[in-house]
């Protein structure tokens, strides 16, 4: 197994920014376009731009779903980013076709609520601060509470167990911004766009062993 990070490319992704970010912290990455190559990587990133259904369709058509399950079970580290985080869960309100997610994390995805006559507009776009909920979150080892991260999304994950909520963010609701359980991780924001703090998170992830 190579000691580098595999980034899954299932069509609609901003892979480029992610690779650039890993380059900056001197972590080797490879873009994985075939499920057959995924097993080469101890650390796997599932990025994602797009809709839940499109994401699951692409993963399915490219044969990634079973392979991801197999490797998750073996203990490979998996980090879902933005839509990629939502795809780790069991289901989403965004799905028009009632697709199941990857179900590596228990819980579902809800839509952020527009609140009339309030300041809450959806999609949630821009820089918002993280509330760290747990001590010793590996992914957030070098992150100060209330640091700003860049969000661009309309849906958010609701993990079944609050024990897995590492950090939250407020936008009308307090939603899960960082998820962690054993070898499965998710961040709702885009660490690759968040300069030092974002790079720190990617660095932590790449060093898990």
């Amino acid at each position, binding site marked *: 197994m190579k000691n580098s990070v595999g980034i899954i490319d299932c*069509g*609609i*992704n*901003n*892979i*480029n*920014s992610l690779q*650039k970010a890993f380059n900056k912290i001197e972590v080797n990455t490879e873009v994985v376009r075939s499920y057959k190559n995924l097993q080469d990587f101890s650390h796997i990133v599932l990025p994602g*731009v*797009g*809709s839940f259904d*499109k994401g699951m369709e692409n993963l399915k058509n490219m044969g990634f779903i079973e392979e991801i399950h197999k490797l998750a079970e073996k203990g490979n580290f998996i980090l879902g980013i933005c*839509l990629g985080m939502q795809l780790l869960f069991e289901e989403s309100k965004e799905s028009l076709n009632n697709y199941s997610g990857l179900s590596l994390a228990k819980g579902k995805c809800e839509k952020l609520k*527009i*609140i*009339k006559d*309030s*300041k*809450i*507009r*959806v*999609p*949630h*776009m*821009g*820089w*918002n*601060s993280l509330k760290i909920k747990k001590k010793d979150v590996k992914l957030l080892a070098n992150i100060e509470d209330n640091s*700003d991260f*860049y*969000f*661009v*999304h*309309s849906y958010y994950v609701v993990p079944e167990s609050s024990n897995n909520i590492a950090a939250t*963010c*407020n*936008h*009308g609701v307090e939603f899960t911004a960082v998820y962690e359980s054993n070898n499965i991780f998710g961040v709702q924001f*885009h660490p690759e*766009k968040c*300069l030092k703090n974002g790079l720190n998170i990617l660095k932590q992830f790449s060093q898990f062993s």
Partner: protein
Amino acid sequence: MKALNTNLKKRVIPIILVSNHQVVKSKEFKDYRVFGNLAQTINVFNQRNVDEIIVLDIDAQKKKSKINLDILKILSRNTTMPFSYGGGIQTIDDIKQCLNFGCDKVVINSKFIQNIKFVSESAQTFGSQCIIASVDYNILNKNNFQIFSHSKLKTDNLNIKNYINDLNRLGVGEIIITSVNHEGNLKGYDHSLLQSILNEVDIPILINGGCGKPEDMIQPLLLGAEGVCASSIFFYTQYAYRDIKNILLRNKIKVRIT
């Protein structure tokens, strides 16, 4: 009832206009002046750690050309902050290419005027959050606005409020409204359309056109715009990005300080 709140910061967004590989600045979409090279300009904004940037290829609008891969390559190579690209986007594949170059969002103007169905098509494929509509308008007289089209599309029969409602309903994630009359004049934004649009739609609204000093940004942000776009202020005036943020902060507007 639990207080509804957000710690979302208001955004200050430089807009960079590109023509013929050069960064330019215009006045009322005319009188273009060259400011230099795109990669260098991006690096300056990288160093200032700005919230995000929007880069628009203005040749595409005039020449009805395709997306500009040269610009996208420069953006993808040099930009460390979130960025959006606009200019010449006509198809789903164009959007896909932009995203693959690392764009967080794409900005679409003419294509939506031509074909409003492209809003739902693009939003369903990529999610609303990465589709920004840009709407330029002329102020005819008080409370009477006309959509302005760079591509000389017929817009006479388009009511701007209906149009913006359609954009919202069909799924764009954000709208930039630009007053053509104010663009490049450094005399402040036009607020007359902003308030009614904020009442109509629930998605983030960005305002653009006319910002000449940090104080100009206060009122639209207090009214409820999620962000203020500006261009001239970064090229023609003495204000540094950080000065702008500090002034906003002193006026009790939540912004990201780095």
